[in-house]
């Protein structure tokens, strides 16, 4: 099972603007993501995390090093068919829900991907219905996208990717423009795709609470990998994360602040519930 799906070796990417000035967005980055893994990529704005996402889907091609996605090596001279194969395997959900829906009716939008793959009509019908049921938007299949809420639109976008049956889905800050409720809806769906369908998930975000849900977190800073580990490992380093402009989840932060005041805890939980339990135990015991 633990086959590597994404292998990056010394991967780098340099943007060059019209005046010839170049910016290194990614510098010698190396990592692997296994099939079926749920990886969160954290980083503040301009850290290079979105560049990483664009490389995975051949929107950009590496300027240096090597990148292999699902067995396809990604480079600048790929044939159109090879690019097509990579995109068939790697779906992408973007930030702005409005700018990624193509059709005027929900179900036709979900069908857009499978239609492009040239799948027979009956199967498209099945895939569209299944995908819409998975994200809980089946009853809205005849709706017009502009009448839906942000979270609903984003779920339609996810359904559109699921219907293509990719092996991996990259969420490029897909929750950034949503309200808390929309975010919760989308997060539940991402978790489900990983748990129930075994889809490899790469979730690019700057919300710490979302990153906690991943199996593994990669922290990107200034085009380099700053940390790579389980959420617990990564969030233990409160000071380090602050140095690269990131926060830690609130519960973890409270524990950290308390320990700064000299109150020691034996465990380092990261989710709110366990943090609350730990604090309660500690102060309950002192009474």
């Amino acid at each position: 099972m633990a086959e590597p799906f994404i292998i990056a070796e010394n991967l780098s990417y340099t943007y060059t603007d019209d005046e010839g000035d170049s910016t290194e967005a990614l510098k010698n980055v190396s990592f692997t993501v296994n099939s079926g893994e749920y990886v969160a990529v954290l980083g503040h704005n301009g850290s290079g995390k979105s560049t990483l996402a664009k490389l995975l889907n051949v929107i950009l091609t590496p300027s240096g090093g090597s990148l292999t996605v699902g067995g396809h090596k990604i480079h600048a001279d790929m044939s159109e068919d090879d690019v097509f194969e990579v995109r068939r395997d790697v779906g992408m959900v973007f930030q702005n829900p409005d700018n990624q829906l193509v059709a005027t009716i929900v179900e036709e939008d979900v069908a857009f991907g499978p239609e492009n793959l040239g799948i027979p009509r009956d199967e498209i019908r099945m895939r569209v219905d299944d995908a819409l049921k998975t994200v809980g938007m089946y009853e809205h299949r005849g709706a017009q996208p502009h009448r839906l809420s942000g979270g609903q639109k984003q779920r339609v976008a996810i359904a559109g990717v699921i219907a293509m049956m990719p092996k991996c889905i990259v969420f490029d800050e897909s929750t950034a423009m949503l309200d808390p409720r929309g975010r919760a809806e989308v997060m539940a769906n991402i978790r489900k795709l990983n748990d129930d369908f075994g889809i490899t998930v790469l979730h690019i975000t700057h919300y710490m609470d979302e990153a906690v849900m991943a199996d593994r977190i990669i922290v990107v800073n200034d085009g380099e990998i700053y940390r790579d580990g389980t959420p617990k490992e990564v969030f233990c380093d409160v000071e380090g994360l602050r140095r690269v402009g990131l926060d830690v989840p609130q519960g973890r932060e409270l524990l950290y602040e308390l320990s700064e005041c000299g109150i020691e805890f034996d465990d380092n939980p990261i989710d709110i519930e366990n943090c609350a339990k730990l604090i309660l135990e500690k102060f309950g015991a002192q009474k």
Partner: protein
Amino acid sequence: MIKDVTLGQYFVGNSLLHRADPRAKLLFAVLYIVVLFFAKSAASFAFALAFTVAMIIISGVPFKSVIRAVKPLAFIILFTAVLNVFWTTGEKLLFEWKFIHIYEEGVIFALYMAVRIILLVVGMSVALTYTTTPIALTDGIEELLNPLKKLKVPVHDFAMMMTIAMRFIPTLIEETDKIMDAQKARGADFESGGLVKKAKALIPILIPLFVSSFKRADDLAIAMECRCYRGGEGRTKLKQLRYGKCDVVLLMLAAVFVSGIILCNIYLPYFSI
């Protein structure tokens, strides 16, 4: 809110005209227009009028909405009619004053022309825009123009552009709303002043709207590519247009219309032109 505008003039319903295949309706509309130009006698026009009224009743579109479709054309209709009254020459002189000569033929011709334009507009809106969703219309046009693909006409691309345009109309309207609010909050004034001032006031709306539209277009293009879009080739479709019973009925209606007009022209040639 402006957000609630319906696309086009589509009138929700489930009539025969609503259920018919858009391709059939397009062909029907073309036939209707052509035949309308063959109408020559009073009886043919009366028949065409009756037929069109019957179409409105079948479609279930209220007469009020139909009249609203004709209203903007009132000036053109009047203008054409007047022009025809003064410029048509014939045998029976009705009225003469200095250089103005009005002939009976002119009056009849003008009348026919007016009726013809009104029927054209009404027929087209009832058969197409009022009873067909814009998306179905686009699909229908794409299917009908399919043979042109052999001549390298990018039919699919045009249809795709139409669909995307329709998809983004409500989004852009919403955005215009937001920008207007934002500019009002900065003290912009859209209501007062003359035409020039009002037009100038639109610039601070149009520029941000333009910029964001380009951004959207860019985003959408990337999103479409990511979903494996590479043009019309090798694409399948979720919804295939299919001819059904309604289309047979529509075909029969068309046959009735054609033969009705021709018969009236031949056997009831009163006031023919």
